[in-house]
């Protein structure tokens, strides 16, 4: 019976299940071979002493116990959290302000948006990281400006206090995608909401907090989660601009895992670190999702 209906539709190859799995095959292969198996391997190695040339040696929870005592690891978690807590809100506020600035309907709106998007286009590249290193370097224009403003001997990358700032700014500078997402959200807010509020005597600030923010809240949630994830994973800029220095002040977790795994060949230990990182990220996004029902607002 089953075979007959299949035949009517054109045989085995035209069965929906067969068609579906054929077309989805690339992803299924990659999910199994490049995601699921590697994750299982990573979990296993996190309980092992492992170097690439040798066989893994099971050591139980030793790696995780060592993590607790590892000051470098603890520091890298702390500086990553500092980077995320300062960098992500800064980037989102900036993105929202620019998006609002560019809602004004003018013939040049498209052009302006394109120009303001340029930093995001190139910001992740090695070229920009190298530029940034000199731009904020001890003889670069930013430090020169700070010196003429009256702070002699100022230096970003020589200071454990300030070295993070150029990295945070480089990340915030790439506000383009969040800006575009906010802009299309702003466009969907009905004009009469604002008009009605204006008639009722609500000022610009009140309109922003009572209309704009609540309606945008689902989009804020989306941007927040996306930026948190990419913030936690920041690698290229830190590797090139500061290489984690000075004195580990910008030794972000992704950079630390890379060094442990590939420079020091502590692959099992690095895997354990990546699992702790994953758990922290999952916990943070989980908490944000759980609490989001209190501050996001969906129009039914």
């Amino acid at each position, binding site marked *: 019976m089953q075979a007959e209906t299949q035949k009517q539709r*054109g045989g085995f190859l*035209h069965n*929906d299940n067969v*068609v*579906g*799995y054929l*077309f*989805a*095959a*690339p*992803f*299924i292969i*990659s*999910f199994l*071979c*490049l*995601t699921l*198996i*590697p994750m299982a391997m*990573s979990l296993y*190695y996190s309980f092992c002493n492992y170097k*690439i040339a040798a066989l893994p040696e099971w050591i139980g929870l030793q790696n995780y116990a060592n993590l607790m005592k590892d000051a470098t690891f603890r520091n890298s978690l702390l500086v990553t959290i500092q980077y995320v807590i300062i960098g992500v809100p800064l980037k989102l506020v900036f993105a929202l302000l620019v998006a609002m600035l560019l809602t*004004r309907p*003018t013939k040049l709106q498209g052009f*302006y948006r394109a*120009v*303001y*998007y*340029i930093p995001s*286009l*190139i910001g992740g*590249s*090695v070229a*920009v990281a*190298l*530029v*940034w290193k000199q*731009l904020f370097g001890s*003889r*670069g*224009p930013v430090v*020169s400006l700070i*010196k003429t403003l009256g702070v002699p001997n100022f230096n970003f990358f020589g200071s454990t206090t300030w070295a993070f700032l150029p990295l945070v700014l480089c990340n915030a*500078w790439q506000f383009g*995608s969040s800006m575009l*997402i906010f802009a299309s959200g702003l466009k969907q807010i009905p004009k009469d909401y604002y008009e009605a509020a204006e008639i009722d005597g609500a000022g610009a600030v009140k309109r922003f907090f009572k209309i704009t923010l609540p309606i945008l809240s689902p*989009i804020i949630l989306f*941007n927040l989660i996306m930026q948190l*994830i990419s913030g936690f*994973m920041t690698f290229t800029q830190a*590797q*090139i601009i500061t290489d984690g220095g000075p004195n580990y002040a910008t030794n972000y977790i*992704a950079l630390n*895992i890379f060094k442990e*795994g*590939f420079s020091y060949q502590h*692959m099992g230990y690095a895997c354990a670190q*990546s699992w702790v*990182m*994953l758990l922290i990220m999952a916990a943070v996004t989980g908490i944000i999702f759980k609490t989001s029902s209190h501050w996001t607002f969906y129009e039914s």
Partner: protein
Amino acid sequence: MEKRRAINNVIYHVFVVAFGLLMIYPVLWMILSSFKMKSEILGTNAPFLPSKWVFQNYPDGWRGSGSLTFATYFKNSIVVSCLGTLGTVISSAMVAYALARVDFKGRKFWFTAMIMTMLLPGQVLMIPQYIIWNRLGLVGTFVPLILPKFLGWPFFIYMMMQFIRGLPKELDEAAMIDGCNKYSIFARIILPLLGPSIITTIVISFYWIWDDYMGPLLYLSKPALYTVSLAIKGFADAQGTNFGPMFAMSTLSLIPVFLLFLFFNRYLMDGVTAGALKG
């Protein structure tokens, strides 16, 4: 009233332009520095514009620091980016079609798996993936950089799915009545209509692969295979304080991305917002 509005308008445009200039100042600084003498690039008295335009930084940079020139690195980047982009477009369109339009057992599961993969931080997979490619003897080749792109890229799968979901289902049904099967619906109906989404995928995936640094850093050890991003980093380290040639090569390395942006910026910007709003 009219006058006040006009003045407001002027203030607005002046502000937006000034702020925009500040935003692209780092890029301008890089380009201008690539035409400066060494003494004018850094320091408190460095001029904004070069006092004398120097073009020598470009041939000096192109020559590279070892025995290889940037011609090799650009060729490598073009090979990796073009093949990677081709793979991304083909595989992501196929998977998106399956997940959006074919009603197969386990579809929900694979969709969830795709979203989870999209959100998974790469660091968890970095080491075990390296070990797998190493066991296969493929570290030190382009394969780990290119082959995975032929196996679907969740970000683009999701983006294309959103696009396909926006196409009326009646199209499929009408084609079915006219004798099309699921394969010809994909080839004759969905794929041609997917055009804008495909252009978006080409533009974004090309520039992501072009800019990728961590992948080449992990998998390419021989300078003959270096991509531009990896080569520039090595070149900067080798050049020390001779920044002119480094800025020249940095500028060149951004040109392909800028050209794509110049011609396709609408598609690029549509792609950025596609995932966020229709979800």
